[in-house]
């Protein structure tokens, strides 16, 4: 009995820690993005609220909470209200299967640093990231606004197309690791991270994950200069913020997923595993911000052409080559 209670307690603590860390990271990721983007454009980012602007996320959050939550006339009220939660929720749920480090022993009991060490972790992450499409598409559709509708439709088309390339990029990883369990995939990279062993898959993964998170150069669903803000044009207050929490949680999730699948997870010399994992997770959002500062937005047909004519065939070819090499026993 005490074992079960203790197990539940450990589980709750783990969930609380993960939730707090992810939310805190997402909030400060916004600050990091604004600061870094500022420096990329030879200006300071926010630096007024607190020392170096460190209290800016708190000020933003307070502001968003206190703003009026407007539901426009003519929207499909129920779906309109739920859509932002789908985006943020799907991103948060995916952290349930993300392992943050190797299992360690506390009071003689093994404590895995993952909420659920499931054997289909890879598939679960995929399922959840596909669910996020519903948030974008429904949010845009129910807003009763042509720009939102276009943004939502674009978002759905883009995310479904690139989901495919993303999946194809991960097939060689699963093939080489002989597992869909994320911990096993990380352990398969103890010697050589898949970023080096599978460079083509890594490239496809990075490009399609940029599209998956709706960020520049693939931010067509919210292209400001043609669609105002796309699917979240009609949202205000905390619901608007929720879309952004979802986007930034998604960035961190993407960082974790990239670290797990391609950068070798927590494996690394000298530093403790959790630190290595943190560094790798944060490197990806920083790269995304760097990309945002560097690249222009793609045209819609270019986006689709890149996805379907480039990344998908390349991913398929990569699977064939990997399969051949595995069959040859290399």
């Amino acid at each position, binding site marked *: 009995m005490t074992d079960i209670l203790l197990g539940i307690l450990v589980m709750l603590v783990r969930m609380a820690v993960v939730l707090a860390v992810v939310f805190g990271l997402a909030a400060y990721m916004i600050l990091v993005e604004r600061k*870094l983007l*500022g*420096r*990329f*454009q*030879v*200006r*300071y980012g926010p630096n007024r609220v607190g020392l170096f602007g460190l209290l800016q996320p708190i000020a933003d959050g307070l502001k968003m909470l206190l703003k009026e939550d407007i539901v426009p006339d003519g929207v499909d009220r129920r779906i309109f209200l739920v859509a932002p939660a789908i985006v943020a929720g799907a991103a948060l749920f995916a952290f349930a299967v993300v392992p943050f480090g190797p299992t360690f022993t506390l009071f003689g009991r093994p404590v895995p640093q993952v909420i659920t060490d499931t054997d289909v972790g890879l598939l679960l992450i995929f399922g959840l990231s596909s669910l996020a499409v519903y948030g974008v598409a429904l949010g845009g559709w129910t807003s009763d606004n042509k720009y939102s509708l276009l943004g939502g439709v674009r978002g759905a088309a883009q995310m479904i197309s690139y989901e495919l390339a993303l999946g194809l990029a991960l097939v060689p990883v699963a093939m080489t690791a002989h597992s869909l369990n994320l911990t096993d995939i990380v352990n398969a990279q103890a010697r050589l991270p898949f970023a080096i062993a599978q460079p083509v898959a890594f490239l496809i993964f990075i490009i399609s994950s940029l599209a998956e998170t709706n960020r520049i150069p693939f931010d067509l669903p919210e292209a400001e200069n043609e669609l105002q803000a796309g699917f979240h044009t009609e949202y205000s207050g905390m619901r608007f913020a929720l879309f952004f929490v979802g986007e930034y949680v998604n960035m961190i999730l993407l960082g974790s997923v990239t670290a797990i699948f391609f950068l070798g997870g927590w494996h690394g010399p000298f530093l403790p595993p959790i630190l290595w994992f943190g560094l790798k997770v944060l490197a990806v959002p920083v790269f995304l911000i*760097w*990309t945002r*500062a*560097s*690249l222009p937005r793609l045209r819609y047909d270019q986006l689709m052409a890149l996805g379907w004519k480039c990344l998908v065939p390349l991913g398929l070819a990569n699977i064939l080559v990997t399969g051949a090499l595995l069959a040859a026993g290399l």
Partner: protein
Amino acid sequence: MEDKKDKPGLLREVLDGASGLVGSYAATLTHLFRKPVTEQYPDYKRPMPARTRGRIILTRSPDGNERCVACYLCSGACPVNCISMQSEEGPDGRRRAAWFRINFARCIYCGLCEEACPTLAIQLTPEFAFCKDAIEDFVYEKEDLLVDHGGKDAEYDFYAHAGVAAGRPKGEHIGEDEPVDVKSILP
């Protein structure tokens, strides 16, 4: 067949595209280590040029008298009618403004009043930041506008040039001859 020759190969195209991407990433990376060009405004206030058009003042001549002769030219020139006044004659015989009022809530800081002013009395200063909570507070009266210096041309004294006898007698103005005794030039 001709078309095919001009068209660059797939590999060439991929390389061109990739090098383009690398170039833009490199450009932003070099910008990251540059010192930001932002001026941190409330902490650092850029020295404004002397002729910047900001808050309006009424200046005084070197002898300390008001320059304004209440001629209404500024109020006539003002495109938004933000200047109003009432003229009167002072004890020394000079014209002056009984009251003088500028509504800065209306003022567009065009500087036409300054150009119209014959005595250099009304001038615009570089001060531009004087926000207020209440719009009534933007109505400046004569005592708010008057300063104790000559502004941009501190040495200028209208009454030293003008032919009017107010202040100093006839023939004593700068560049003015003695009044001619008409009887002495009779034929």
